[in-house]
């Protein structure tokens, strides 16, 4: 049996996951010493690389796809099946590549942890849980992995438990994660049917679209809450930043992708042929998510929270692709569905790269300055040059600007949107352009947001003393960030290879695939046909390089070489303090005025003293988290009110309790008497 046989691959992958699980208890014992934690992270890196390799082989090997191995542990009344099919293999490549690099970063970064015992053991468990979700070919192991992933990441979020804010974040996270998992549990219950066929192939065989609709809604709630779809995103901007930065990178860059996988698995693979209206809730939620996510991010001055909100936006973009694919699939438009799905999964890949990169960068900054608030940063480009370069690459990539990778997936999504006139139903046909508009808006706002993020953090003058004394981060961290930056560029200029790797997934899930792309001249990508659209990242990149070089050469040849350093001119206002710079708040002010007054009910209250009065002028900003206030607070209030009311039952007299028993007795007697 060859090493590349699916069966052997599944075994390899399963043992990799087993190793990761085993690493967790080992971590408890070795975490006390810095070397121990470094070795643990290194082991994670190696295992993840191995898993990524295995998954890549599984993805690219043609032939019989699903070769699950059965392991004797797990559900007592069912079978535990593990293995890769193209869908899970593709996601496994993505998450393991990212996890491996993040683990590399952690080799250096993890040494800064104050209480490594609260982090190191959970880290491999977290990755293992995510891998288990992907490997699972039955509902039980899927959910075990899912919950394990939530649980391990919860432990990591609460690792800095001394701050009340973090504790609250962890709590909200755990509760919402469990709520989501329960929704998935219901979905699987429905799919498995009364006979309890929990294995995925059993479910596929029994698939009927009667239950599919409910499963779709449940999956949207369950996976959507994990991924961060508005309005189920509330935990995400709390929890992701609360964790140590390498874990934030894992949560934002990797875990949300597992949630996307869950959605694809449930809706595209398991719940049978889609109905036309399924795409509508998905698209609506996705559009709102994309737009609200970026607006929230713009209002945020905490670097990590900004990034977390941006994850929400990107999840919206991914779900736009998924929704489109669902619409096309339901409309019988195979190749369009394939295009949309490719766009979505490509964006999954991209987002995992650049969001991890950005979180790692924020970790480096946090470590250097001890600050997450951008209002206290500035000018770090001088003191952390490598981090700055990598972070800049991430910013450009996430703002969907060519020639980086973020643009390619967004471009593909736009191409898919432009195919929407072919849809048979009116509702999605009218909805899709509007979604396109929100996508365009969110892309533009994202650029604004990352100008702010990079500009306030790395550019300008230092706004606090910690920013002046910051230092560059360690070697491992720098290397990891540079690798991410390089991958972002590489995926942007050579997208054909990525698309071709995703094709087996579309073949499996929507039954169609794009034409092979990687063999086209100049590594161009032509998703539909060349007269319609094409993109050539490599050529574009070369052109930009050549043009830049040419300009630089010409200028160098002809221009004066004289260069003088002098204080900033600033229209003559010399020697102003760094406090006169634009801050994150002032940068976002125009956008807040334009969008925020509606979305966040943002109001500015200015108290201006009379002329001659020496009192301080004050600007107070009123700001509402509309989603939280409209959706979550009422639930919390109802819950509190109910418990208040029920709690009186704890303080009754014995006689009252006897009355309860007595009434129950009389009631049951009456029931029995009337039922006969």
């Amino acid at each position, binding site marked *: 049996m060859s090493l590349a046989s699916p069966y052997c691959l599944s075994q390899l992958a399963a043992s990799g996951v087993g190793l990761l699980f085993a690493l967790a208890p080992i971590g408890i014992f070795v975490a006390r010493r810095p070397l121990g934690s470094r070795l643990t992270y290194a082991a994670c890196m190696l295992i993840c690389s191995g898993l990524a390799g295995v998954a890549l082989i599984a993805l690219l090997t043609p032939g019989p796809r699903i070769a699950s191995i059965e392991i004797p542990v797990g559900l007592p009344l069912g079978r535990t099946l593990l293995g890769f099919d193209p869908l899970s293999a593709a996601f496994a490549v993505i998450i393991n590549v990212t996890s491996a690099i993040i683990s590399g970063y952690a080799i250096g970064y993890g040494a800064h942890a104050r209480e490594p015992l609260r982090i190191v053991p959970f880290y491999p468990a977290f990755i293992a849980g995510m891998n288990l979700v992907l490997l699972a070919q039955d509902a039980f192991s899927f959910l075990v992995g899912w919950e394990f992933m939530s649980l391990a990441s919860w432990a990591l979020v609460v690792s800095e438990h001394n701050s009340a804010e973090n504790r609250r974040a962890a709590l909200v996270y755990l509760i919402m994660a469990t709520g989501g998992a329960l929704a998935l549990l219901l979905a699987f219950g429905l799919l498995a049917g009364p006979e309890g066929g929990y294995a995925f192939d059993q479910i596929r065989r029994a698939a009927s679209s009667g239950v599919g609709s409910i499963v779709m809604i449940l999956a949207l709630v369950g996976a959507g809450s994990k991924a961060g779809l508005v309005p189920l995103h509330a935990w995400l901007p709390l929890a992701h930043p609360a964790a140590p930065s390498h874990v934030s990178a894992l949560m934002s860059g990797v875990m949300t992708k597992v949630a996307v996988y869950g959605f694809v698995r449930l809706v595209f693979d398991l719940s049978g042929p889609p109905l036309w209206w399924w795409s509508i809730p998905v698209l609506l939620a996705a559009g709102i998510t994309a737009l609200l996510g970026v607006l929230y991010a713009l209002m945020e001055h905490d670097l990590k929270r900004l990034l977390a909100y941006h994850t929400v936006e990107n999840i919206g973009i991914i779900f736009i692709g998924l929704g489109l694919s669902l619409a096309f699939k339901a409309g019988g438009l195979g190749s369009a569905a394939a295009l949309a799905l490719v766009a979505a999964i490509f964006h999954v890949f991209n987002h995992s790269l650049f969001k991890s990169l950005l979180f790692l960068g924020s970790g480096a900054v946090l470590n250097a300055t001890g600050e997450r608030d951008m209002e206290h940063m*500035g000018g770090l480009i*001088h003191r952390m040059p490598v981090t700055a370069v990598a972070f800049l690459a991430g910013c450009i990539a996430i703002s969907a*600007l*060519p020639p980086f990778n973020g*643009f390619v997936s967004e*471009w593909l999504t*736009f*191409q898919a*949107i*432009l195919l929407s*006139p072919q849809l048979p139903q009116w509702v999605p*046909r*009218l909805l899709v*352009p*509007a979604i*396109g*508009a929100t996508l*365009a*808006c969110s*892309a*533009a706002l994202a*650029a*604004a947001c990352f*100008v702010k993020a990079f*500009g306030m953090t790395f*550019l300008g*003058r230092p706004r606090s003393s910690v920013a002046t004394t910051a230092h560059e981060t360690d070697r491992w961290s720098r290397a990891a960030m540079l690798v991410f930056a390089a991958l972002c560029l590489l995926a942007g200029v050579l997208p054909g290879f990525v698309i071709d790797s995703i094709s087996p997934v579309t073949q499996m899930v929507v039954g169609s695939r794009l034409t092979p792309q990687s063999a086209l001249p100049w590594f161009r990508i032509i998703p539909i046909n*060349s*007269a*319609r*659209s*094409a*993109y*050539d990242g490599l*050529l*574009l990149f070369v*052109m*930009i390089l050549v043009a*830049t070089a040419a*300009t630089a050469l010409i*200028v160098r040849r002809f*221009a*004066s070489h*004289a*260069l*003088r350093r*002098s204080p900033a*001119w*600033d*229209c003559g206002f010399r020697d*102003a303090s*760094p406090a*006169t*710079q*634009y801050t994150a708040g002032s*940068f976002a*002010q*125009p*956008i807040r005025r*334009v969008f925020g007054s509606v979305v966040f009910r943002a109001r500015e209250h200015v108290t201006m003293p009379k002329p001659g009065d020496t009192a301080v002028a004050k600007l107070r900003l009123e700001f509402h988290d509309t989603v939280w206030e409209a959706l979550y607070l009422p639930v919390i209030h109802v819950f509190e009110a109910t418990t208040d009311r029920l709690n009186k039952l704890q303080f009754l007299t014995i006689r009252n309790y006897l009355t309860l028993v007595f009434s129950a007795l009389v009631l049951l007697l009456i029931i029995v008497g009337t039922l006969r």
Partner: protein
Amino acid sequence: MIQAWLTQLSQVALVLGLAPLLSGVTRKIRARLLRRRGPSVVQPYRDLLKLIRKETVVAENASWLFRAAPYAIFATTWVAATLVPTFATGLTLSGAADLIVIVALLGTARFLLALAGLDVGTSFGGIGSSREMMFASLAEPAMLMAVFTLSLFAGSTQLSSISTFMLGPNAGLSISIALALIALVIVTIGENARIPVDNPATHLELTMVHEAMILEYSGRHLAVIEAAASLKLLLYLSLIACVFVPWGTAASGAGALAYAIGLGAYAAKLAAFAFFLVLFETAVAKMRVFRVPEFLGVALMLGLLGTILLFVSRVPR
């Protein structure tokens, strides 16, 4: 093959050479409309040369980004401008990118410019970057929606294909196209710092946007940025010309005569657009900053409306 490359190269050179001239022409027309004599149309070339020869002053705390940004901005804009058909369609490199890519390339340039504005850490730079990004957050989607309308109309996002389609028999008059045109014009005005939105000729005014961002630049850096700005204007006008008045544009490999005609037509179109642009500029007054989003919002709405009307009025292909 070689001829194709030559044509392409000539386009690359053409846009580069023509861009300052376009600026010069608009300034001249503007001056005339204001009953001034105005500088010569080649004045922008002189300005650029002058700037290039001057000593460059860089703020003390400026980083490498500040110095590298002008070149990158210029290069991206240049590449984008190259990709828009001017006198001929179907050039060698045009397959590398479609309309969406062009919009995105401009986005990259804007992104870098905004960062450069923040680099020195002055209040003016911040104002400029912040407002530029706010405008862009409406202008870019508006432009994309116009692009959507065109692409759906022509069934392609490739500019050459769209241009050819517009020439062909299937393109009729459509309300959507008109809406797209208006949207595109508004975006052109907004993105090129033209008058109701921004004033390219002033300094030291709190409402300035573009000029505020490049306030710290001088010498050769400023020259490169100014060149990029004029390239951008050229790009937008070429784009409108190529899509909405495609007549006279040569098809690829059509021969020297066709190219000559195309070139002439292109020049004429540019001149006409420049005139209308300036005419409009002189006729309106500068807006307050927070009126601009409404102005650009109109473009976004028109673009979206155009797209949706298209869905309603046309049988899907």
